[in-house]
């Protein structure tokens, strides 16, 4: 189908929160009939790993992130825990705790998990391309990533992006 719309995404972030936009947009675009490709480069490669346990969220240095508890009575959930950066940086495993709380919040809100969204993308035939240069730069091996990923460089990305209707850098 030549008149099929195309969406090209470059995914560059490697945190739990920033894994959402590429997978949400790609899966939705596919449902709307778009042919979709995501080019994963730099930290975005984390989203292609077999083990997604490395995707975390960090409130440190992120003033836009509300810090609210996903449990307890309403008055408690409504508190915004405004913890200074200097304190956050000293608490061991702070990111692990924040990530656990974030995952609970995601579950409470009926928001899909990243593994689920990634699988939905694959089912909908969204093409995943990993940047070979950054795979090598970070010392990854193809075996670290899920099956079905293609490996290429900038020229590979432009082959599809040049004909796309929408192109996003995330």
């Amino acid at each position, binding site marked *: 189908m030549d008149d099929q719309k195309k969406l090209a995404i470059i995914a560059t972030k490697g945190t739990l929160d920033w894994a959402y936009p590429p997978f949400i947009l790609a899966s939705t675009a596919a449902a*709307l009939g778009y042919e979709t490709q995501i080019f994963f480069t730099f930290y975005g490669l984390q989203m292609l790993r077999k083990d997604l346990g490395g995707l975390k969220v960090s409130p440190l240095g992120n003033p836009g992130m509300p810090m609210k508890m996903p449990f307890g009575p309403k008055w408690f959930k409504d508190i915004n825990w405004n913890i200074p950066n200097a304190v956050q940086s000293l608490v061991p495993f702070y990111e692990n705790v924040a990530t656990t709380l974030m995952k609970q919040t995601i579950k409470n809100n*009926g928001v*899909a998990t990243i593994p689920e969204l990634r699988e939905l993308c694959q089912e909908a035939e969204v093409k995943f391309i990993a940047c070979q240069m950054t795979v090598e730069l970070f010392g990854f091996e193809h075996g670290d990533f899920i099956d079905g990923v293609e490996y290429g460089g900038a020229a590979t990305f432009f082959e599809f992006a040049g004909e796309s209707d929408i192109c996003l850098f995330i």
Partner: protein
Amino acid sequence: MNFDKELDARGLNCPLPILRTKKSLNEMTSGQTLKVIATDPGSVKDFAAFAKQTGNELLSSAESGSEYTFFIQKK
């Protein structure tokens, strides 16, 4: 309204109601109607946009309390 299949998307948030709807429609034949119940307030605009872009017809979109009911006819 008559329907051929029902999808319970209650408690699901964006983009899951749309993705599940698309999946359900894939398993149906042209002209059949899918009933979807959702609780995501964003789904009202999303289902209208989904129908417009995919050519499936949104026969009705109704709100009752915190639930939204859509009837979609497959293209």
